[in-house]
C-alpha cells in the first residue's frame, strides 16, 4: 500500500514540476520540453545522489533501482510516448503532405540519410556494435519543426518558399525517423522484418484506411459517454500491441492509427480529448521520466562527453549538409541555370539550418531503442546524456543561426516597410497641398 502512496506522490510531483519547468523555459522562447526534462533530471538525481530514497520517489528504473513501482512509472511514460505519437499523427494534414514538392521530398530523404549514415558509421568506428550504432544514427534523423516555425514566424519568412518547404520536409522526416527505428529494434532476419513491416502497413494503412469510416459510424451508434473516443483509443492500443509484438515498437501502431483517423472530421474532433489526456498527464510524465533517467554521475566517464560531442556535431552538420544539399541539387525547381547561383546556395542553407532542432521524436526514438534492446542497459546512461545534450545544443543554436541566414530577407522586409511609410507620408503631404490649393 505504501508503495502506491509514494507512486501517486511521485506522479503528482512530476506533473507539477513538469508544468512549472515548461512555463519557465517557454518564457525564454525555447521549447517547454527542455524545462520538463530538466525537472526530471533534478528529481532523478535526488535519487542517484542518495538524497532521497528510491522508495519515496519511484521515478528512475534500471541502474539497480527497479521495483514494481518504478516499473509502473516506466509503463506510464511508455503510454506517454504512445499518446504523443498518436496526437502528432492525428494533427497531420495528409492531403497537404501528398502535395509536397520535389525540393522538400529530396531534401527530406537526404536530410535523414546523411545524419543516419554518418552517425552509424562514426559510432561503429568508435567501437559500438552495428545495431547500436544504427540506433544512434536514427536518433539524429527527425527534426522538431516547432522551434523553426516559431522563429520563421517571428522573422516573417514562414510563408516564403523556404518556409513552406521546411514545414513539409520536417513533417516527412518525423515519419522516416519513426519508421526507421523499427530497423534498430526489430528482431529476425532482414527479409522477415521487411515482410512484417509490409504486412503491418497493409493492415493498418491500407485495409484500415477503408474500414475506419465504418468503425467510427459503429462507435457513434453505441450512444455511450465518450464512446467514439474509447473505441478509437481501443483500436489504437490494438495496433500498438501488434507493433510491439512484431517490432518491439508500439509507437508505430499508435502513429498509424492517428494518421488514418486524421482523414476523418470525427477523428480530428477527438483531438481535444486526446490532447487533454496526453498533455494533461502522460506526455509531461514521459518527459520528466526521461529527464530522470539522466544520471549526472555519467559525466565522470569521458565516454559520455565524447559521445555527446560526436552526436551533437553529426546532428548539426549532418542535417545542414543533407537537407541543404537535397534542396540545392533540385535548384528549387528553377532549372540548371539556377543551380550555381548565390540565391540557390542561400535558400538551401536556410533550409538546412531550419532542420537543426531536435526534441520530441529524438527522445521517443531513444526510449524505443533502449526499451527495445537496441541500446543495451550498460550504454543507456551515456546515450541518454548525449541525446539530451544534442537536443539542448540544437535548440539553442537554431534561432541565432536562422536569423543570420535570413538576414537579407529581414533587411528587405524592413526596407519595404520604411519605403511604404515614406510613400504614405508623401501621399498625405500631397493631399494636404491639394486641399490648400482648392481653398
Amino acid at each position, binding site marked *: 500500500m505504501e508503495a502506491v502512496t509514494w507512486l501517486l506522490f511521485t506522479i503528482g510531483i512530476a506533473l507539477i514540476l513538469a508544468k512549472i519547468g*515548461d512555463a519557465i523555459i*517557454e518564457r525564454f*522562447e525555447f*521549447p*517547454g*520540453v527542455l524545462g520538463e526534462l530538466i525537472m526530471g533530471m533534478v528529481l532523478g538525481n535526488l535519487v542517484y545522489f542518495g538524497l532521497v530514497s528510491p522508495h519515496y520517489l519511484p521515478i528512475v528504473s534500471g541502474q539497480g533501482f527497479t521495483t514494481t513501482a518504478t516499473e509502473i512509472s516506466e509503463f506510464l511514460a511508455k503510454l506517454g510516448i504512445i499518446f*504523443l*505519437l498518436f*496526437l*502528432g499523427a*492525428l*494533427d497531420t*494534414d495528409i*492531403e497537404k503532405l501528398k502535395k509536397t514538392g520535389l525540393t522538400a521530398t529530396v531534401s527530406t530523404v537526404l536530410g535523414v540519410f546523411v545524419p543516419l549514415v554518418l552517425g552509424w558509421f562514426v559510432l561503429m568506428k568508435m567501437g559500438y556494435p552495428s545495431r547500436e550504432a544504427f540506433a544512434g544514427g536514427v536518433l539524429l534523423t527527425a527534426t*522538431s*519543426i*516547432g*522551434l523553426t*516555425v*516559431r522563429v520563421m*514566424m*517571428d522573422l*516573417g519568412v*514562414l*510563408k516564403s518558399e523556404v*518556409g513552406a518547404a521546411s514545414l513539409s520536409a520536417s513533417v516527412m522526416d518525423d515519419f522516416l525517423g519513426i519508421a526507421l527505428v523499427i530497423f534498430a529494434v526489430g528482431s529476425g532476419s532482414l527479409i522477415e522484418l521487411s515482410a512484417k513491416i509490409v504486412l503491418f502497413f497493409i493492415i493498418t494503412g491500407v485495409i484500415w484506411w477503408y474500414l475506419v469510416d465504418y468503425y467510427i459510424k459503429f462507435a*457513434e451508434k453505441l*450512444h455511450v459517454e465518450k*464512446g*467514439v473516443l474509447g473505441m478509437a483509443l481501443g483500436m489504437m492500443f490494438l495496433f500498438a500491441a501488434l507493433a510491439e509484438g512484431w517490432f518491439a515498437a508500439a509507437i508505430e501502431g499508435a502513429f498509424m492509427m492517428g494518421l488514418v483517423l486524421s*482523414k*476523418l*472530421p*470525427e477523428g*480530428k*474532433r477527438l*483531438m*481535444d480529448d*486526446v*490532447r487533454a489526456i*496526453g*498533455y494533461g498527464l502522460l506526455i509531461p510524465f514521459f518527459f520528466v521520466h526521461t529527464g530522470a533517467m539522466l544520471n549526472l554521475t555519467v559525466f565522470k566517464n569521458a565516454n559520455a562527453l565524447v559521445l555527446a560531442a560526436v552526436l551533437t556535431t553529426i546532428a548539426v552538420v549532418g542535417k545542414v549538409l543533407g537537407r541543404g544539399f537535397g534542396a540545392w541539387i533540385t535548384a528549387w525547381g528553377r532549372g540548371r541555370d539556377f543551380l550555381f547561383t548565390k540565391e540557390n546556395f542561400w535558400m538551401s542553407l536556410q533550409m538546412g539550418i531550419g532542420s537543426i532542432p531536435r526534441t*520530441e*521524436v529524438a527522445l521517443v526514438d531513444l526510449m524505443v531503442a533502449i526499451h527495445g534492446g537496441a541500446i543495451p542497459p550498460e550504454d543507456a546512461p551515456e546515450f541518454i546524456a548525449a541525446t539530451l545534450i544534442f537536443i539542448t545544443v540544437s535548440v539553442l543554436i537554431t534561432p541565432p543561426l536562422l536569423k543570420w541566414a535570413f538576414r537579407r530577407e529581414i533587411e528587405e522586409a524592413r526596407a519595404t516597410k520604411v519605403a511604404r511609410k515614406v510613400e504614405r507620408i508623401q501621399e498625405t503631404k500631397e493631399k494636404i497641398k491639394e486641399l490648400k490649393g482648392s481653398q
Partner: protein
Amino acid sequence: MELENALETFHSMKVRSIMPRPETLPVVERDAEIINVLKLLRTRHHVWVVENRETMRLFGVIRYLDVIDVLLPPKSYKFKLGTTSRTMKSLLGGATRAEDVAEKNPLTIEQDATVLDALMKMRKYRVQVLAVVEDGRLVGEVSLRILIDELLRLLRVGGAQWKQ
C-alpha cells in the same frame, strides 16, 4: 402545441425541411482574405469555406472560436507535437487566406437525418453547427440557432413570423 408534442415532432423532423437555402449560407471561397471572413463573423457564428461558389465543394469551416487562434500573436503559441495545425492560424504568423485558418473536412450530416440525429452528433463532438453536403457540395447547414428557431416556431412562442 404543447411542449412534449412539439419536442416529439421537432426530434423527428428531417434536416432537409429546416435547413436554410444555400444562397443564404455564410460562405467564402478558400482564397478569400481573412479580413472578409472576420467581417462575416461579426454577425455569424461560423463561415463555410468552399473551393469556389460555382461548385460549392466544401473545403472547411471557420468557427467563431477559431478567431482566437487567428488574432493571437505567434509568441502565444506552444509549439508541441500535436498542436502545430492550430498554431499556423495566426494572422501575424503569416495566415492571409480563409484556407489558412479553416478546419478542413468539417462534420457533416445527411439531409434525410432527423433533428435528433443532428443533436446527438452535435453533443458527441461538441459542435454548434453541421454542414449538409450532397456529393461533396455544400447544400445547407444545421446550427443550434436554426434548431432553436424551429422549436420556437413549433411552439408558436417566437416573433410574429412564427404565428403565421
